[in-house]
């Protein structure tokens, strides 16, 4: 009943929602949250591939089985997303200290 396409479609919907939010929000923290949604969409896609792809799909040179590759990729994406969030929020705090606002349109020394 459930097939790979269900999960891929779910990932596509979530990716688009995140993309819309990232492009349309004004608050820097909100933009960061929407980008996290996009990363989660990618992760669902990757884990779904890991679950459904045939083992034979793994080509000759890469030694790890395809199910492992998908999940390992996801682990790295989560790692990077957390690091990026930490740095992003540090910058947000720094801006707030000098400017008292973190809205990307209020901040207008340079054109956005």
């Amino acid at each position, binding site marked *: 009943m459930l097939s790979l396409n269900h999960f891929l479609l779910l990932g596509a919907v979530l990716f688009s929602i995140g993309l819309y939010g990232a492009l349309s929000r004004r608050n820097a923290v909100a933009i960061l949250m929407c980008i996290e949604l996009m990363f989660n969409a990618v992760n669902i*896609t990757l884990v779904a591939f890991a679950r459904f792809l045939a083992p034979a799909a793994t080509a000759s040179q890469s030694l790890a089985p395809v199910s492992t590759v998908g999940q390992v990729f996801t682990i790295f994406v989560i790692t990077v997303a957390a690091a990026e969030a930490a740095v*992003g929020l540090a910058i947000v705090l*720094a801006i707030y200290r000098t400017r008292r606002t973190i809205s990307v349109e209020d901040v207008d020394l340079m054109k956005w």
Partner: protein
Amino acid sequence: MNLNLLLPEISLCVLAVVLIVIDLLLPQGRKSILGYIALVGLAFPAVFTLSLAGVQQVSFSGALVVDQVSVFFKLLFLIAAALVILSSFDYTRRLSILQGEYYALVLFATSGMMLMASTRELISIYIALEFTSITLYVLAASIRNDAKSSEAGLKYLLLGALSSGALLYGMALTFGLTGSTVLNDIASALAQRGISAAAVLGLVFIAAGFGFKIATVPFHMWAPDVYEGAPTPITAFLSVASKAAGFALVLRVFLTAFEPAEKTWLPLFMVLAAVTMTLGNFVAIRQTNIKRMLAYSSIAHAGYVLTGLAAATAGATSGMLVYLLAYTLTNLGAFIAIIAFSGQVGSDQIEDYNGLSRRAPVVSLGLAICLLSLAGVPPMAGFISKVYLFAAVFDAAAKNSGLYYLVVIALLNSAVSIFYYLRVVKAMYFGPAATEESLHTAFSLRVALSAAVAGVLIVGIYPTPVMQAASVAAQVLFH
């Protein structure tokens, strides 16, 4: 697993950590020694990189490759890092930048770029790219209590994260279609199964992610803002090394993994190249701030380099490598001169460059040489590399007639660009000076500028060794 292949990267990371530890032990006021340690320490990765010249080896389960291409790029990054560190001595002292962390992060970023030039597997590529990017976000925001710098860091991070979302989606689709993350396996799987619509989609998403790194249209909008707000040595670093690292990835991914889909991406890059150089040049004309002008000019140069990818021959690839090296030296020189001026004049506005040749003749001459080289005037490096690249693209036009138009567009663009580069030269040499008081430039900046200008002239007058190295390297990517 062969750790020797990673020695340049490892030594850079060790050097960075050592710097942070020394920083803790140094009393306040003695911190400027950190810059010298970082600069001298670069000798280690340089020696290790040179010792890898001629090696052709794959390691770490196919994730890492050391070949002529990666060595070429690694040396380019080291040259850029050395000049950036040298030009930061004066800058970090003037502005409130934490020196230990600053130099350490520059070294980490260099290490990340080297990894970008050496990885051949999607997961490693992604991690190397993010390693470099996160380091650069921090560096862009590293001037303390400076709203413009923090804002540059935030914009860079938000747009960078957005683009890596697109990149990841593309990588996920490519992995799903081919069942592998190793570039060569992706190529054989694509060749075997044909290019489906999903493969094209994956390719486009990946191109979008890389397009952000090299600042091509329509992913260029971050560049002017970030270039203007970031510390100027970091702006220089971003405009040359980060861009070159992006090109290293583009070359490896598209010429290896997506080689079977060449018919799809050749027209894509052709259009991107034409639009990118045209937009960059025409918007650059309107700029009044020299950092923003050079930001748009660097977008235009990314467009010129992309013409090589639209041709996708060994000759054109070799042209891209030579062009990137010439552009690195030239643009670094221009930015070093800007650092020298803004330190004295306190402004980056082009109108404030009026009459500077009488106040600082040596630095003005250096900036003029670099700007003329960017414009492609002989005998500078910018001229010979443009000729070399465009001639190679022209050669490839026999099998793809669209390239004739591309070369014509590139030449017209080069002609347009002369206008805005010369405007600055004209202001410096013929503009009325506000005062006649002569400017004092820090010794380190003079050394850095002389080195960059010497490089520009040497490559411009005797380019043969660089061209030979580049063409040997380019052959690697075409088996």
